[in-house]
């Protein structure tokens, strides 16, 4: 399968994405490193879009020809002390792995996010030490590896070592300045 990366777009989720959403989020391999449970029905997909994706402060569907094949989520922290930080998450349908889609989507998302949330200074991504694919995605998207946080948190009941990456608004503005 050849994928033209120029066909990748980001947009908010719609209820109409439920079938496509169930296709990718119904796969254990897709949800393996996420906190989500694998979806078991189209109703669950519809509920997830309605209750989680649509109200989310910044979640986008990753689309090919406007069909949803994944998500990218950026979650600003709440509270006066922490609102300058946000957490980054991404997932692409398993059948589309290996084409650079997640990297392209990550780059697009980061650029748009810093425009939409100018008060955020630090974007963080936590990636399981064993998830080499996702580490490559965030590295190629321009995140900087800061370190491995040992036994940092439970994901799906298992205690994990997580690699912490960051992308600062100053990194973004510096890259923009270089591009101009």
């Amino acid at each position, binding site marked *: 399968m050849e994928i033209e990366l120029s066909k990748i777009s980001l947009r908010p989720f719609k209820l109409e994405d439920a079938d496509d959403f169930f296709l990718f989020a119904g796969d254990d391999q897709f949800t393996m490193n996420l*906190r989500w449970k694998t979806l078991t029905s189209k109703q669950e997909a519809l509920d997830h879009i309605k209750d989680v994706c649509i109200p989310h402060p910044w979640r986008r569907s990753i689309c090919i020809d406007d069909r949803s094949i994944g998500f990218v989520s950026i979650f600003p922290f709440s509270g006066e*002390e922490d609102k*300058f*930080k946000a957490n980054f998450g991404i997932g692409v349908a398993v059948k589309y792995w290996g084409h650079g889609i997640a990297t392209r989507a990550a780059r697009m998302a980061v650029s748009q996010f810093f425009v939409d949330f100018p008060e955020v*200074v*630090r974007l963080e991504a936590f990636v399981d030490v064993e998830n080499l694919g996702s580490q490559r995605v965030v590295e190629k998207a321009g995140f*900087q*590896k*800061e*370190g*491995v*946080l*040992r*036994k*940092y*948190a*439970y*994901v799906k009941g298992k*205690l994990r070592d997580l690699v*912490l990456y*960051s992308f*600062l608004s*100053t990194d973004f503005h510096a890259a923009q300045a270089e591009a101009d």
Partner: protein
Amino acid sequence: MEDTSVVQLHQNKPEDECPNLSLRPLDVSDIDAFMVWATDEKVARFCTWEPYTNKEDGLSFIKNTVLPHPWLQAICVDDRPIGAISVTSNSGNDKCRGELGYVLASKYWGRGIATRAVGMVVETIFDEWPHLERLEALVDVENLGSQRVLEKAGFQREGVLRKYVVLKGRSRDRVMFSLLSTDHRPT
């Protein structure tokens, strides 16, 4: 966010200068001792708070933050508080993790007291909290004294987290340190 405020400038004073070191709960009756370090701008330098200017604020802090805290103890010399040390707790998927913080009156810096106090906490916290797997501490990149305290106490430096906090209006980089229950007592 816990604070690690100690900047130790002199490393070689013998430990037996302060033999009677102990940890005990901090109470409103300790307010005068508390004000000694809480009003000191050297102590507050890398902390999220500004030096205290009046006793009422100090008493509020003790009542509202210290007394309900899941784990906070006064660091005492001859049973007189000269600082405090604390561990936060988390819930759910984060319950494996606790954050260590400490403050010490500046007159007691440079004698290995913070290192000993951290050691005393490490000896008991994993037994008191069996769900705790990871004790972590975040230290300002410029706070070399506190970094040395944690290294001497056996913590591992994991990396520099860029612009991790906004402290007094400025973004600060923090060094992340951790000690695992398995580091402390290999199974």
